[in-house]
Each structure stands twice: as C-alpha cells, then as structure tokens.
C-alpha cells in the first residue's frame, strides 16, 4: 500500500484536513481508542457494481494482514453470514460498517438502516455511497421510464408463482441516493473504486484507533493537479477536443491540450491515475472542498482559461464559441454526483442531457451570475 503520508496531508492548514489523533467524543459514535479484541467489520453493497468489494484486494498482500486483524461479521461478496445473522446482532456491536453502492431500492434502505443500528461507525465507501455514483445518472429518468424500458411496458412486480405477496422483489425508490441522504455517515473513503492508497490509509487509521474527526474524507483536500506529473504551461484553452480525437502529448497538461480534465476541481489521492494513463480525470474522488459544486467550478475554470487567451471586448464571443464545443454537460461534469449536485426534477435534468450547452441547466456563460436552477 502506498505511504499514507502522501494521501494525507499532515499539518495541512486546510480545515478539511485530518487531525492525527482524535480523543473520543462523549456520546458519539466515534470508536475505540485501540481495539481490545479484533474489531468487527461489516461490508455491504447496495446498488453497486461490486468493484468496491473487489477493491479491498487491490492493496495486495497487505490485505491478508488487514483481514487477519479484523473479524468479518457480514460481507455478502466474500462471506456467508445472512441477513438473519445481522438482525440477531446487538445494536452497536459492529465496530465499522463499510457501505458501498447507490441507494436504489426499498431493500437497500432497510439494509443500511439495519447496519446503521448495528454499527458504531458507518463509512460511505466509494463514489456511489459518497455522491450517488454513475448509477445515479438514472435520476435523469423517472422510475417508471426505467422499469418500462428494461422490463417492458405493463410489467408489474409480483411474487413467484404460488408464493406469498411478500416475496415480490423490492420496489425501486423514485431516485437513486447517496448514503448520506438515507443514514448518518461518519467517514468517507471516496473513489470509483477507492484507490489502494486511500484504503490503506483508512485501515491504518482504523486499526491503530487513531481516526480523524468524524466527517473526514479519506483523500486529499488539494486538487488532483497537485499530484499530476504532467506539466502545465500554457494555461490557455484554445479549443476543446474529445479523448478519441487526440493522441495527447505524454508530458503536457491534458487541459492545456484541450481535453476536459476535471483535475483542477477534484480531490487528489489516486496519484492522478487517469491523466497518467493519457486520459482525462472524470472526478471520481469528488470535488475538493474549495470547488464545492464540481460542474460550476469547472465551468468557471474553463472560462478563465479561455479568457486568458483573449483581450478586451472580443473575449465574450470567443468564450461562447469554445464552450459550445462541450457536449453532454451533466454526463461530463456530474458523472458521479447527480443526486448530490443536481437535485432537479427528471424533466429539468433531461433537458440538459442531450445536445450542446444551450438547453442545459448548467450555464454555458458562467461567471455572469446565473446559477443552475434549483441547485443547492
């Protein structure tokens, strides 16, 4: 696993930064200074792809060591305890529940509420639990549209032939939600999936009993650009290109080359994995505390890059011309966070999905005081 120092800016002045040691809060869910016996952990998936569950193995051989220091009491992907076993556990008896996936069905809600009751700490693990994730792009449609399209118009839930009504599959929620919109979340390990270094950082903190303040996000507060080895020189955006239209220079900043890289507004912590692979960052670690809304922050960053190359009055038309080359704004700027950053009605969201910038709820002319309608 990577050195935790790298991902955890010790002594950083940033208010979101970690504190090396936290005294236990009275009456809080905060753990344990040091675990007397092997701490009990649960790992659960809701509307998820399973990548978060597999990501634990990505820390390599260290996982054998980590797993030997904990007791897995519930982890459907890897272990056999059932829901009845979880229900039988006393409240607060699990030290930490790591929950991944978007909250998509009624059953997801029941399960995370159950885990919240049983666990001292709940961690939102991965981009879906953190922000809603890729599957929450489904909020661009209504539940009925999704069901109709997937299972056919006229499809209705029901039990298996001869089975009681209660055996019908659970209903979908009207929208996909991040974990924090359903239960209280103590910590977040972000990413799609979380990078090995951040997973290691979490377990180091957890197993040593030195957890940061509740609310901490296990990633850098500084932007991904800070850890990206590409060189940034021009700081001018002359055109926008899409990844399949350009074989980028291996050394130069992708944004300088016209690729929409979300590095400037996204937390570091992955060693800029995608830019290093020649592809732009799509923002899976979530926005930096400074960026707030990643779409708005990115649009203003782009606008300032465009303006930098222009002078006086001519700046405005040129800016529009370049920014109009952006397609699929929501998919590009809010790929992992529709329910967190775009709490709009499906109709409004849909209006922004197709075609170019103009009908989008995200302003194509940022910095002129118009904010996305209805956004928090």
């Amino acid at each position, binding site marked *: 696993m990577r050195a935790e120092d790298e991902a955890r800016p010790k002594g950083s002045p940033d208010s979101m930064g970690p504190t090396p040691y936290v005294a236990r809060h009275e009456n809080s869910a905060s753990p344990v200074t040091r675990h007397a016996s092997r701490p009990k952990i649960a790992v659960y*998936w809701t509307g998820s*792809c*399973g*990548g978060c569950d*597999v990501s634990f*193995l*990505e820390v*390599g*051989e260290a996982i*054998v060591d980590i797993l*030997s220091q904990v007791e*897995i009491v519930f*982890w*459907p*992907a*890897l*272990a*056999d*305890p059932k*829901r009845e076993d979880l229900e039988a556990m006393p409240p607060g008896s699990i030290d930490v529940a790591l929950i991944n996936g978007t909250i*998509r*069905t009624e*059953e997801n809600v029941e399960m995370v509420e159950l885990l919240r009751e049983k666990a001292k700490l709940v961690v939102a693990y991965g981009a879906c639990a953190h922000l809603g994730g*890729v*599957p929450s*792009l*489904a909020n*661009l*449609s209504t539940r009925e549209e*999704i069901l109709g*399209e*997937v*299972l*056919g*118009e*006229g*499809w209705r839930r*029901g*039990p*298996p*032939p001869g*089975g009681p009504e209660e*055996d*019908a*599959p659970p209903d979908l929620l009207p929208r996909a939600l991040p974990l924090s919109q359903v239960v209280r979340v103590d910590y977040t390990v972000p990413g*799609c*999936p979380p990078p090995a270094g951040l997973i290691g950082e979490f377990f180091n903190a957890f197993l040593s009993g030195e957890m940061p303040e509740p609310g901490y996000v296990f990633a850098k507060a500084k932007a991904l650009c800070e850890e990206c080895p590409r060189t940034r020189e021009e700081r001018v955006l002359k055109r926008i290109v*899409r*990844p*399949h239209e350009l*074989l980028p220079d291996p050394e130069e900043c992708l944004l300088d080359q016209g690729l929409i890289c979300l590095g400037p507004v996204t937390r570091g912590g992955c060693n800029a*994995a*995608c830019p290093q*692979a020649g*592809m732009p960052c799509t923002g899976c670690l979530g926005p930096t505390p400074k960026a707030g809304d990643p779409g708005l922050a990115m649009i203003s960053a782009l606008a300032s890059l465009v303006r930098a190359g222009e002078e006086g009055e001519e700046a405005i038309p040129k800016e529009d011309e370049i920014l109009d080359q952006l*397609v*699929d704004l929501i*998919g*590009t700027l809010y790929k992992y966070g529709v329910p967190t950053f775009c709490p709009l009605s499906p109709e409004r969201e849909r209006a922004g999905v*197709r075609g170019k910038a103009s009908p989008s709820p995200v302003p194509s002319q940022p910095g002129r005081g118009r904010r996305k309608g209805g956004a928090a």
Partner: protein
Amino acid sequence: MKKIVIDPITRLEGHGKILLYLDERGGLKDAVLEIPELRGFERFCRGRRGEEMPQITERICGVCPEAHHLASAKALDDCYGAEVPEPARLQRELFYNAYIFSDHLLHLVFLGGPDLLLPEDTPRAQRNVLGVLQAHPELGKEVVRVRARAQKILDLIGGKAIHPVFALPGGVAKPLTEEDREEVRGHAQAMVGLAEKMVAFFHEQVLPDPGIQSLLLSDECQLPTHYMGLVDGEGAPNFYHGALRIVSAKGAELYCGPAGEALSLIEERSEPWTYVKFPYLKELGWKGFSAGEDSGIYRVGPLARVNVAERMATPLAQEEFERFFDHFGERPVHATFAYHWARLVEMVQAAEDAARLSEEDALTGAEVRGELGQPGEGIGVIEAARGTLFHHYQLDGEGLVERVNLIVATTHNAAGIGLSVKQMAERVVREGELDERLLNRVEMAFRAYDPCLACATHFLPGETPLVVEIYGADGKLLRRVAR
C-alpha cells in the same frame, strides 16, 4: 406451505435471494432465485458521449469491468468504422487475457473456492476467503501475490485495474514502453507458473474428493442445454474475438458465424418476481423452465466455451482440456459443477496467451489509434469471464449515444442458473433436515456459474425481442405482451 429463504445469497457479485417453497410433507414445491435489484443503465447511457461508454458501462460490473470496457470499445470501433492498429489490438488482448486469468482465479479461490477447498461441514462463519487462507496458507498466499501481479498488468495497460480507462474507439489511449513490456512479461510468466500449480493442486486435492466426484458425475447434477461461445479460426476458445458458435445439448452445431449477427437469434422474456430477464434461442422458442434438446435455453461461460471448442489455443491448456473430456467421456459435458474445472482450463490458456502476447514485437508500437469515420451503428462481442457479452450502440452525428442494447453473460445463464438451483434444492430436500450445510449446497449450484447479478440486471435491452406475461392476484395469466 413452508418457506425457506436464503437471503442474501453470498460469495457472488450482486444481490439475490433463494426462496424454497415446501409442501406439508417437506417435499419441494418450487425453488426460485430472485434478483431484487435494478439500476437502469439502459436509460441513462442515452445522451452520453460515445467515447465515454467504455467508462460508463464498466460500472455495470466492478468484477468484470474489463469485459464491458473492451466490448464497448469494440462496439465503438464498429460505430466509427475504425481499423484497430496492431499495437493497440495487442495491448487490448494482453490486458484481456490478464483479466480472464485474474477473474477466474478470484472465483476459484475466493468466491467459489471455499466450496471446493474447505470441508463441507465448515461452519458458515469460516466458509470464506480467510478460511481458505488458513487451510491452505502457502497456496493461498501465492494466489494473492500472483493475482496482484495480474492486476498490475491491468493497471499498467488499463490505467486502473478496476474500471480501466485506456480503450477508445479505434484504439487505446497511449503506446506502451519497452520498460512496461519488461514488467508485463515478468508478471505474465508468474501467472503461467501459478496456473500450473493450481492444476496440480486441483488433481491432487480437489478432484479425488468423493463429494466433488458426486457433484460432477451424478445424474441429478446434469443439466442438458445448448452452449454458446466465441472460437478462433482453429476452433479454440478466444476471449477477445472470433466467430460465435452454438452447439445443441446433443452436440449438433446450431450456428457458427459472425458474432454480431447472432443477436438476431435471441429472444428474451421477463417474469414478475425478478428483475432479471431470460433469453432463449428464438428458433426453438420458450418452453418454460426446462432443459433439453427441444428447449430454447442455452448456457454461456467456461463450460459452454470448452463445449463449443475443438481444442485450446495453448499447450498446457490443451493438456488440461483433454483430461477434462477424458474424465467425463462425453461431449458436450452437462454437469453444472464442471464449470469450475472448465474455468481452470481457461485460466491456464489465459496465462499462457498473456505470456505469448507479452513477447510480440508490435506490442510497443507507437501507432495506437486507427482512423475514425463518421459515427453510426456498431456491435461489439467479447467473451466475458462468465460468457458472451454483446454491446450494440447507435451514435448520432456528434458521436452521442442514441440507442444501446446489451446482453450480458449472466443474463444468458439466468434460466440455467434457476434450473440448477431447483435441481440441487430437490436433491437436498430429499436428503433430510435443511441445515446450513445443505442450504449452502443449494448456493453451490448457482456459484458454479460465478454469476454476476449486477451485470444481469443492468443490461440494456433496447431492441431485443421481449415477452412480458401479466398475472392476476390469483396467479392466472391475464395478458401476454410481445415486443
């Protein structure tokens, strides 16, 4: 009526529960695998940028993102009429074989492994990867070590091992360096070494077990279905590309031809009690949940691929392939539990092929992007670890997604999995009191398929013909709608 619920079913990818309905005398009335999840990728892929699809559809499944990533890229190659240059194709194929190796290994040791490598009376709390590591510490640690090396290949070529980013229409993101090749070569050789050890271990410690023998050979564990998979020009399985071959339960060739065209051979039906759909061969039709030569139900994945193949592509895999068919003395092999063994055969080929590809001169060539034409319609077909995967897109003039159709491995197998679960439930109900051990055996029936229920419920049906039956509260069929 008595009901037994196994919820959630475990050591697989995604959500599922098994419902066993028993009559007054304890006999099995019905056994159902219900999939209680749905995310709806079908809707929200529309309007996205085409070149983003490899990075969106891979979020259908984090266990096999590589399969979606490359099936998507292949569909995009077709959409743009692009010829993929040799260095890019080699990068993709090498990456893909490393994935098949890693995914099969994950299942053989961590997911399905506890059923194969631990005594059957192991309590529920220990029947997991840690149990395996304790029972077989040396092999277990080496598996973790070598799997990490296979993941390094994915990371190095793909940019990220889970949810890779490198594939684009017409090629890949960037050239590989000679330094990269050196590293990859070392990892691939370690994979071959482990594959050999796994084969030896399997023959010494797993296969001789009478319980395993019974699961492989007893009549009640056979499920005669048709089989589908990609083969190369020599008739060996190829995971990345090839012609699609379908053979019947009796071994007759039903189709062998361009993979993309095979989409038109398939129809699907939905049921009210599950979010998964059931594909079948259109020509044979849906005959209910029953197997056999006349049924339209077919299976995909490791067992299907060795059944449609004439040989394996590499020497060590060929040896194991021969031992496999010698053991059963028939083709096709219908034992559901033989999926595990077929997985091992394939894992050997994937390791050997990765090692061979790592030596190819052109692997480090600078030409990694083919010329792109105007965006349009395209189909990509690939063998995911769990079976044949189809991606079918229509892009508009700007290269944005208009329509998507996708049929994934576990969906093809949905009916077969249901039948295997029922078969096993019948067997264990006869054996007596349904304790933890016997109920796990019911789960072993689906685990043989290494199912990915996240995949199965998040596919994008679009144009695939679909049949919906609507039942009244009394269970009577009210209406049948076909699209």
